[in-house]
């Protein structure tokens, strides 16, 4: 697990260095993500080595957003000042963006014949 964690941190570190040296719009961890996909493609053994640790971290991805989420409290005065406008902007645009994005994806998948029967949700459940 320590080896896996070191490797993951190393990919993040290289991603961070690349992102800053080349002044890229992508942050270090997202660069690290891209590098790790490339690494796994070149060396499939790497994916097998990292998978248990990666699955462990991703299973609790929500946890890592909690400290930043608590930060919302520090902004309550500004949020309250523009409360209604900001709330409607966030809720309205998020609903519209999810709906429009999913429908566009689905329409083009049908149109280009790239529907994947193994990735279709069963009826019922959530």
């Amino acid at each position, binding site marked *: 697990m320590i080896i896996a964690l070191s490797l993951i941190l190393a990919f993040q570190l290289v991603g961070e260095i690349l992102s800053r040296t080349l002044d890229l719009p992508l942050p270090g961890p997202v660069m*690290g993500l891209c590098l790790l996909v490339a690494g796994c493609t070149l060396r499939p053994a790497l994916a097998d080595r990292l998978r248990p640790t990666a699955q462990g971290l*991703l*299973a609790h991805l929500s946890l890592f957003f909690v400290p930043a989420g608590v930060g919302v409290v520090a902004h309550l005065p500004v949020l309250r000042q523009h409360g209604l406008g900001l709330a409607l902007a*966030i809720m309205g645009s998020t*609903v519209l*963006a999810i709906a429009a*994005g999913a429908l566009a994806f*689905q329409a083009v998948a049908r149109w280009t014949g790239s529907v994947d029967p193994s990735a279709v949700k069963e009826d019922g459940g959530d």
Partner: protein
Amino acid sequence: MTDPALIWSYLAQGPLLWLTATLAAYVIGDAAFRAAGRQSWANPVLIAVIQLAVLLGATGTDYATYFEGAQFVHFMLGPATVCLALPLYDNLPRVRRAAWPMLAGLCVGSGVAVVSALGIARAFGIGGPVLASLAPKSTTAPVAIGIAERIGGQPTLTAALVLLTGIFGAVVVTPLLNALRVRDWRARGFAVGVAAHGIGTARAFQVNQTAGAFSGIGMGLNAVLTAVIAPVVVGWLGG
């Protein structure tokens, strides 16, 4: 026995107390989420944040003190983001086949997110730095902060708006896409990743691995596209 006030002042200085509180709040949030049958309204991030906010208010602790302890949890966001490479790698054949649908979902989802958010805010008389802070709210926090700084927004306000967007998106995605009868896991995951970044991706992984993988890709691609379109739309709507 030592005076409880002394013990409190000792604990309030170090990271141990708030690190423990953060993990405990999440454990309770996650237990509540499971007890509610993994319904999206019982979002574990939301439940944990509310508990901690009440606790900070009750003990008169400021956010900077809290973050001294919570930063260790916050730090793990980076490595966890790198780990999204694994589900992406495992789904690569699927991803290659879905290139055109992803391009369509990305352009439409990203464009609608920025334009509709700024349009609604503008209608309520919001302008200037607050409008600029709102523009990148669908992207992952570090990218959103970078974009906000470049277009004259307030980075910390952006971080708060990003979080609110993510939590709302994670709560609304399942009932919304059920109502629209979108049954393709790829479309469901991708759309929530584009609109609600990492918190949406965390929600997608709770439901389906394929949805989670596509959500991670949506989040990454939207980070790049929003960096390009947000300055244009803010300029256009007279930020």
